[in-house]
């Protein structure tokens, strides 16, 4: 029975009636370092409610393998558990695999507002993974806007340094106003001196930016010269 289940075959069972047994299989497989991917994918296809209970329920096995091998089954799991709750539960269940869970959440829900809270739970600099993963994709602007709305200036500043573009700064200014966005502006201007930072901000928020532009200039001057 266990071998068929590990192969993803649940044709002869009502999974909801065998939850303790299913959890035992997961526990044992984790202990024996047995691959559980087919098990979770098959279970989610047969009965996503039971699969969600095994993967993320209150008795779920808190082991990196259990979480990691359950990730290919999220398509099925998301049919019965709201993504925001599912990914949050997986992140809390096993912190060690949280970056992988976050990466999958980003891959599947790059523009979701709740991703920012997940980033804040997982990352030392929240938003970094989201902005890196969505760069050069159609989701980047939404990711920038969500990070800016949450005030994730450090991640936005890092994104601004990565390449000479104004989008991280403009999203920050729109969401936070020019003064709160100043760290992003400093990072942008420092890393890419040729970008028209002041001109862009003035075109975005209005012409009376002189005090802000002075503060920017002072901060950039105080910073060390950009590498390279």
């Amino acid at each position, binding site marked *: 029975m266990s071998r068929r289940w590990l192969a993803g075959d649940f044709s002869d069972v009502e999974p909801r009636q065998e939850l303790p047994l299913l959890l035992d299989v997961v526990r044992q497989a984790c202990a024996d370092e047995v691959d559980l991917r087919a098990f979770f994918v098959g279970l989610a296809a047969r009965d996503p409610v039971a699969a969600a209970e095994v993967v993320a329920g209150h008795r779920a096995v808190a082991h990196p393998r259990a979480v990691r091998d359950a990730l290919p089954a999220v398509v099925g799991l998301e049919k019965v558990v709201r993504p925001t709750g599912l990914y949050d539960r997986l992140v809390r269940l096993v912190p060690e695999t949280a970056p992988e869970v976050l990466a999958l959440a980003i891959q599947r829900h790059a523009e979701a507002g709740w991703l920012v809270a997940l980033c804040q739970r997982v990352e030392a600099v929240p938003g970094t993974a989201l902005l890196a993963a969505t760069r050069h994709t159609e989701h980047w602007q939404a990711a920038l806007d969500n990070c800016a709305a949450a005030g994730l200036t450090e991640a936005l500043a890092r994104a601004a340094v990565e390449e000479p573009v104004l989008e991280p700064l403009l999203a920050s200014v729109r969401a936070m*106003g*020019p003064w709160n966005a100043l760290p992003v502006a400093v990072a942008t201007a420092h890393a890419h001196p040729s970008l*028209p930072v*002041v*001109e*862009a901000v*003035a*075109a*975005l*928020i*209005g*012409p*009376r930016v002189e005090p802000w532009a002075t503060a920017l200039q002072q901060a950039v001057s105080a910073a060390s010269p950009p590498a390279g």
Partner: protein
Amino acid sequence: MSEALLYRAPGPWPFLGAFAGRAGHLAFAGRVSGSLAIAHGRAREVELALARIEPGERRQVLTRAWEALRALDVDGLSVLLVSRDAAGVGISGVGLRSLWAAGQGPPRTYLPSDHPLFGPPGLSEQRPGALTVAQAPPALVGTVEPCDALPDGLDVLRRDCGVWP
């Protein structure tokens, strides 16, 4: 002294080439066209030029302002000029599509849409005319696009005109 404001334009750069300021008895707000860097630089030149206008009789102040602007030869100029002296207020402009009175209750249209003050951007051979009134509202708001309504509340309106606290 009435404040001169220019309402944000539609599009991703609502204040591209925008300028604003006050000098003596002249308040002004406007914009010039051009790329991000060029329009910004030209707008600063306009600000500097208008900031140097000497105080005087309100129509004379407007005349000096127009001469200063003509000397700059900027592209796509839209501007609202408001001058004041002891006798009253002078209002002039180009490139405006509507003019609103603000600061005393909800904004209301200040001039009918067919008023000669309104027209396309840019200076023509003839100097723009001026409207003289005894008193003006706390703020006059010009728009460069047709506009049916402006937000209520002077703080919100000022921010939409690019004036931050």
